[in-house]
């Protein structure tokens, strides 16, 4: 039964996914810094950065399942790995993707490889939830101006690791469905939340639990002239660009990648087989990026369908800057996507 016209933010949708799943399955726990609002306080409720991400969880599920962690990412991501091997289904909140540097071994050598290394005999139902991206145009209070170590995208270094699933939802609706799928998956899944989308976008979200398939891209706008392939917040930029292009009489199709690993090559190739042109838009830096990986796969398998070179639109080969005037021009925008379409059509 689908409820009508109830709108949630992206962050509220993910929180609802966690709450519904924790009610259903007592083996789900959550680990992270400040997830319980500072344990041991009389009336714990998350505050600060985690306020919107975990509101109500500690009150409903208590400190045994909502576990505040000290600053010890290597330790508590590792605890998630060990717990996942021994009967729990942990959700680890790694507040910023930038923090993977201090727990990367747990993700790439432990969580991702355990099932394969153990000959398929060990489950690893672990979810790592984290945020990525710069927040151009927002104030420091809202997460903008966080500079090079708290604004990165760098999800390609996760997608690269065999065994890890990596999802990048783009709407409150698909965020809830993909989060529930991630929690129910018996392997490790990283759920990436864009900071800009997190608090800023609202849409209709059914009240009940539902899943969306991990590993499926979605065509979110149909068009015959060019395929714009977007990841995360960049899908929004692609949709904005498609509106602008429509005014010029160019019909752009927009593919929302949604899962970086395993990548849904078929949906992208199928779109390109109809539009014959591909532009991949990625908030990450260009070298060894998802954008170039997708471009490479289409060149490999779909070269015959192309009638112009593939273009990639990415952030520059530079860390995220602090100054607002620089941060605002860092990530791709609908204008840079439109410019890429024009350039491609001149070929």
């Amino acid at each position, binding site marked *: 039964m689908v409820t009508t016209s109830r709108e949630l933010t992206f962050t509220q949708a993910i929180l609802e996914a966690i709450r519904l799943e924790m009610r259903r399955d007592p083996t789900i726990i959550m680990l992270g810094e400040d997830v319980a609002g500072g344990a041991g306080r009389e009336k714990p409720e998350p505050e600060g950065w985690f306020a919107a991400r975990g509101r109500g969880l500690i009150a409903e599920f208590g400190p045994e399942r909502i576990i505040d962690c000290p600053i010890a990412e290597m330790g508590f991501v590792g605890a998630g790995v060990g717990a996942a091997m*021994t009967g729990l289904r942990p959700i680890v909140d790694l507040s910023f993707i930038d923090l993977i540097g201090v727990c990367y071994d747990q993700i790439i050598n432990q969580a991702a490889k355990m*099932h394969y290394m*153990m*000959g398929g005999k*060990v489950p690893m139902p672990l979810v790592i939830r984290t945020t990525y991206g710069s927040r151009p145009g927002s104030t420091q209070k809202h997460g903008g101006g966080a500079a090079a170590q708290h604004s990165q995208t760098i999800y390609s270094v996760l997608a690269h690791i065999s065994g890890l699933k990596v999802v990048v939802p783009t709407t409150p609706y698909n965020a809830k469905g993909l989060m529930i799928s991630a929690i129910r998956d018996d392997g490790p899944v990283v759920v990436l939340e864009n900071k800009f989308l997190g608090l800023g976008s609202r849409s209709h979200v059914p009240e009940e639990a539902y899943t969306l398939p991990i590993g499926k891209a979605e065509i979110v706008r149909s068009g015959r002239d060019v395929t714009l392939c977007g990841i995360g917040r960049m899908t929004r930029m692609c949709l904005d660009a498609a509106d602008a292009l429509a005014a010029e009489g160019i019909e752009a199709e927009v593919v929302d990648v949604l899962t970086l690993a395993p990548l849904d090559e078929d949906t992208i190739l199928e779109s390109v087989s109809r539009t014959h042109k591909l532009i991949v838009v990625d908030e990450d830096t260009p070298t060894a990026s998802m954008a170039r990986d997708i471009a490479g796969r289409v060149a490999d398998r779909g070269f015959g369908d192309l009638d112009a070179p593939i273009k990639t639109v990415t952030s520059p080969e530079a860390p995220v800057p602090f100054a607002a005037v620089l941060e605002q021009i860092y990530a791709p925008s609908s204008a840079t996507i439109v410019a890429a379409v024009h350039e491609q059509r001149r070929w």
Partner: protein
Amino acid sequence: MVATEVRPTPTRERLLFMYDRMTLIREFEERLKRLVDTGLPIGAAHYYSGEEAVAVGTCAALEPNDWISSTHRGHGHCIAKGVDVRPMMAELYGKVTGTNRGKGGSMHITDISVGMIGVNPILGMGTTHAIGSGLSAKVLKNGRVTASFYGEGASSIGAVHESLNLAAIWKLPIVFVCENNRYAQSTPVEYAIAIENIADRAQGYGMPGVVVDGQDCLAVYEVARVAVQRARRGEGPTLIECKTYRYHGHASSDDPRRYRTAEEEQYYRDRDCIKRFREQVTGRGLLSAAELDQIDARNSALIDEAIKFAEESPLPDLAELTTDVYVPER
């Protein structure tokens, strides 16, 4: 404080378990070393010979459904916890009948069914996984204790520090067992650590720390028993430092005489844990030499059987290259 006194006397059943497992580990490692030295291509192997009392004394204090996490030098931990030596040996041969279907090798042997959550060659990481199994025990209220082995070398990595702190603040049912075998590859402990006893660090985390002679199985058992009981009562973790020695090099390719002396090696071999255990139990009339000899013969035959099983087992099908990358849907 060095614990030397042995009391109360372990049950006869437990004494037999100790001798059986220590000699099975020794036989496994020494036979394996001979195979490797004569050309068996098994990749990197880190022999446990010399340290048997640590794994066995600890595991003798555990129940079958308790957990252990391990290090790169994990064969001894596996055998002490009850992993079958046949699939273990088959794993080293890269056979599909191996504990890990031939996909893990020596450094990843795992058998969840007996509570062994992983040999792990990224040092220190096993201690963080013990935090996870400790949390599982707490949330699932199943009363299980985790013994987490790590070396004195790994005691310098941040993961171990984070684990000791997390275990202490959450009062997790964990026994940390630091195997101080004096060398991290070729780096001596005196160089890498500024204090004499790693167990002294326990105080800084808010847990008891005990130093024990790691070549004395009964002594290790006694301190492990106390620590396991404390963990099971919900009183939190303990750090046990076992002073021990590995008889062979760091790995199968390493020549230890390049960084340690024959005299030092002999000092520890003179205090060999199996020899001492025999003297302790026969001297006190707890077990007879004849029944210990019988165990020796049985274990020798068991390793014969394990090698035969490994040699005769099939290799993985080539399709296994890309199976089990992702966990299949239920």
